[in-house]
């Protein structure tokens, strides 16, 4: 496989007396789909928050494309090309679906104040490009007909898809999905499966996934990390993880 896109070593996160993540190591290579699984409260989302700069990890190193990012604020990490979704969907609910996608392209757009005030040709061009890009992704996730609907009024599955589209318009290198299948029916889950595979295939994005839906995880992942009580328990291909006795113990009990 190709080189490491993201590499975390000795990652620790302590909240007061609670060691939520302990000596976690993780790497994602370009073009891989990697999953993190583990029981509730195992620290998966905390790892996510550390990787995306929402928490400053109390220990350890994170390298993104060779650059240390563990001290950077979240928005800077996002600008490097690491974007994420949230466990409980976080859309701009009062804004329309299309506006959600335009906001996400903020840093790619012509943000000059005067250019916008006087509608210069370059401003129009950049707005048009943004709209087209948004239209492309709306089509991809099947939300074109809802473009001018308020995002908060969409059905739950549609909101999930919009959130992924909103990440993708930023042209990320690493897409981090926090339980994208939560609350979806089996039908929608298999659509999600196809969407994620397609994102990797046609847009070259690597994916880090937290998910409880084992069918989706086993189906889609190249590698899986299993976390229990903040500590890495096992890692490997879906096959290896499935047959690992420790994993079975952690999930099913003794």
């Amino acid at each position, binding site marked *: 496989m190709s080189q490491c896109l993201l590499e975390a070593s000795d990652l620790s996160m302590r909240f007061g007396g609670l060691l939520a993540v302990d000596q976690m190591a993780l790497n994602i290579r370009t073009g891989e789909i990697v999953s993190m699984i583990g029981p509730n409260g195992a620290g998966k989302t905390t790892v996510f928050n550390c990787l*995306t*700069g*929402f928490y400053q990890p109390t220990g350890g190193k994170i390298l993104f494309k060779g650059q240390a990012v563990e001290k950077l*604020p*979240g*928005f*800077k990490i*996002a*600008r490097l090309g690491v*974007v*994420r979704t*949230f466990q409980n969907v*976080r*859309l*701009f*609910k*009062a*804004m*329309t679906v*299309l*506006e*959600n996608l*335009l*906001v*996400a*392209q*903020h*840093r790619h*757009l*012509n*943000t000059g*104040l005067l250019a*916008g*005030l006087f*509608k210069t040709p370059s*401003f129009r061009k950049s707005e*048009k490009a943004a*709209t*087209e890009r*948004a*239209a*492309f992704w*709306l*089509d*991809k996730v*099947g939300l*074109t007909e809802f*473009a*001018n609907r*308020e995002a908060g009024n969409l059905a739950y599955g549609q909101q999930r898809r919009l959130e992924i589209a*909103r*990440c993708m318009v*930023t042209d990320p290198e690493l897409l981090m999905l926090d339980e994208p299948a939560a609350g979806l029916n089996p039908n929608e889950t298999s659509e999600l499966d196809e969407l994620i595979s*397609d994102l990797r295939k*046609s847009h070259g994005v690597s994916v880090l996934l937290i998910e409880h839906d084992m069918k989706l995880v086993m189906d889609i992942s190249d590698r899986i990390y299993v976390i229990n009580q903040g500590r890495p328990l096992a890692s490997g291909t879906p096959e290896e993880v499935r047959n690992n006795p420790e994993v079975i113990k952690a999930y099913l009990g003794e």
Partner: protein
Amino acid sequence: MNNYNATSGLRWFPAFMAAGVLLLLAVLMLGVQLTTENTQLVVDFAASERWAWIVSGAVFVFLVQLFRDPLTALWSGVKGHNAIPKISVPSLDDNKPLKRLLISFAIAGLLIWPFFVSRGAVDLATLALIYVMLGLGLNVVVGLAGLLDLGYVGFYAVGAYSYALLNQYFGLDFWSCLLIGGAMAALFGFILGFPVLRLRGDYLAIVTLGFGEIIRILLNNWTAITGGPNGISQIPKPTLFGLEFTRRAKEEGNVPFHEFFGIDYSSGYKVIFLYILAVLLVLVTLYVINRLLRMPIGRAWEALREDDIACRSLGLNPTAIKLSAFTIGAAFAGFAGTFFAARQGFISPESFTFIESAIILAIVVLGGMGSQMGVILAAVIMTVLPEFAREFQEYRMLMFGLMMVLMMIWRPEGLMPMKRPHLSLNEDQEDESASGQPAAGSV
């Protein structure tokens, strides 16, 4: 249901309680008054007429509470038949020529109207326009970016005092001070924003409230420069390309407006000129904010109001966005302040008390957060209504409160809630349809 009504249809106990509470409050607040007689405090009783009003009020409350159940039944019947009509402007989005025509007519009407009405009315309209400008500016901060700013009047004061002081000490004229006042207010917004914008919600509100008060107290106490509570007077009115609107030119070599055009002097010209200036300022404000709304920065403000964590995850810098909203909002207050100083000719810290901030905020909330037409309507209502309600004098604030309560019950989203801009996905694609649909059907 009928059984229930038969046994307890009349609510004796709540009725007595309500009437009792009313009497207690009314007697203390309206019935007696402390006055000083020489060195002593004396309790004065109100005139018998007022007692009659208090008693009849208590009786009214008692009766309403007593017959509340039948009354609510009656009311819900009435309400069911004709629900309160919604104020809504017919959509003009798809009819651009008509929209432009209507806007031109409205502007022409606004400019011609003052020549046919009394001076007082024009003056009042000018005041309303100042509040429109303030409301639109605060709307950026509160309505769009969702930052509760209770010290907005501080920036208004900065703008007003910038003009007054620069004119007094350096003799700068209105037009250059208009820009400087806006820039000064923006600068204050920027400087205040840095430490403050890490705070959220209530905390932000308290700090901005403090800021507004600091500005006012500073102006009040820095007597050497600002004149303290005496304020600054004799601030010159704006000029029209150097033409003054006074009877005689104040400066050597200047020609007053009426002499230049060879017409008789009338103080009305000045009032109308100020009014037209205010209209132009409001139009500029409207245009700028309308553009901002359709620019990345305006969308980012709203996104920040909706969810700042999602903003960060998409690479938007929340601090920079908040700061821009705060700065731009403050700049509009600065413009309004400069104009206010020029119109009044006299300013003192008393014009910039907290109640002003509250009124501007009320305009934004009343009009509908983020809605520009709503804010304009609310600003006009809030400035014109008190003039009509002059007879009520001290009860004006009471009516104001009542209006706010009723608004919150019936239209919590404001008079004219903000409408989302309807963006067409393929507005330019009609003429270039070949390249229009990138990779359609690729999934």
